[in-house]
């Protein structure tokens, strides 16, 4: 039986308007990360705030599975990543509104991962998940 024990988690954040792909280094910090992302977004209305959630959260067998998947998925969707709000405008982990959840999950599923030389997938930990957060 394969154990999914990665400390890292991969998440897709749904802001209500677009998506963000990211990783967290310690799985116990998932709710903290949600809290800080929620605050950063600073949505003006209660309806808009209610839409914020983790659309998907994945765990891996090893940390490198999670890290590599994030890296390659971000690379694949590079042209759809929103630029930073500074003159350099480097791509952020936020996608533009053309990107659907399916496109991101497809990019994640495409990453070849192996355990003991046999193909494996990341494990879907949560779907449409809203952790408890402090306002």
């Amino acid at each position, binding site marked *: 039986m394969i154990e999914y024990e990665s400390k890292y988690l991969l998440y897709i954040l749904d802001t209500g308007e677009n998506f963000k792909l990211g990783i967290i280094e310690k799985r116990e910090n998932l709710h903290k990360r949600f809290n800080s992302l929620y605050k950063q977004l600073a949505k003006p209305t209660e309806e808009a705030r209610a839409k914020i959630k983790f659309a998907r959260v994945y765990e891996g067998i090893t940390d490198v599975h999670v890290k590599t998947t994030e890296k390659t998925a971000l690379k694949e969707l590079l042209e759809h990543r929103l630029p930073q709000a500074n003159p350099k405008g480097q791509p952020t982990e936020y996608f533009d509104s053309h990107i659907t959840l399916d496109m991101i999950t497809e990019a994640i599923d495409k990453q070849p991962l192996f355990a003991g*030389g046999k193909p494996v997938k990341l494990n879907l930990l949560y779907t449409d998940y809203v952790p408890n957060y402090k306002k």
Partner: protein
Amino acid sequence: MTIGNPAFTSKNNPFDPKAEINVELGIHETFLELAEQSIHMIGISDAQLKVLRAEYKKSKKNFLNGYSYTVEFIKRSDLSRKRPHQRDKVIDAQAKMLYNWNHNLNTPVYVNVDKDGNNNVMEGQQHFTVDSILGDPDDMVNCIVYRGMPDHFELEFFLNFNCDARTGITDYDHNRMMILIERVTPTGNAHYEELERKQQLFEQFNCRYLEDKEENKDIACGTAHSSIWKVRPNTLKEMLKFISNDEHLRKNPMIQVTWGFWEVMADSGYLYDDNVRNGWRDLVLDMTGQQNVKSELTQILKENERIWSSAKGPKLMMQILKERGVEIEMDRVCETGKLQTELDNEVSLSETAQTYVKMAQNND
């Protein structure tokens, strides 16, 4: 069995002169053709150059074997000579030059050619080098001299083009052209000829040696680390063959620990052992590809309060493979018993290493 990487098409294969990528860089042209496009005159007037060239062409025509100058033309007593210890240094310099052409191309070297187009340069050619200690410095023409090139090459290059530098072609092209030129005209220099053999292996298996640039670090079957040229030909052959025939491995760039491991395999007599090869493949895939192996091994060493070592890394991989069930005798891999115990402890005490051991066992 597929030989080579089918991902390389005629559009992107660096060894196909018709490939678009090569057309753009101009590496389908010969070295001399490239040099011709970048004629750069310094320290010599047009009239003087005209005379030099006319003389060179005339003498070339007159001479039966097509060489304008030969050693017989020079009175050796007129020339100072390199002492043996100086010559030794020249060999090192040549080896270094191969890895860093760009530096040489941007460093003017002075060559002895007097106003009459005399052939003092041959003194340098005999010794595979040139210097400015001979003759009157006012007589000198500045140019780049390609040391250790095939017989007559530097003379031809210099007198034809009076070239002091060129730009616009990359390190990779320089190395490649250098090696290809050496291949056309064998030098009798074992070091160069071995490089030539290795270059052929790269081409045979569609692998690439690329310039050391950030954007080149992620190219399938490619590497930008020049230490790959130090791998023994047979080891290199087995490695490139294995990687380019594996559908997953050939999607990764190669890094130093890749050939580091294959060298350890060769040293300990496991080079042709399929279990070890496949065990390595599975472990690399578990680490999500060759490019991530070093960071994973570093992590394992870090968990033991140790730092990365390129000598130890591949041996650590051997230990992990052993614990993953591949038959390996660690005393063949390690020179000392102390190292053996050390590796054993490092794997058993590292959480990351244990994850990799467990991954293999779960699949049994």
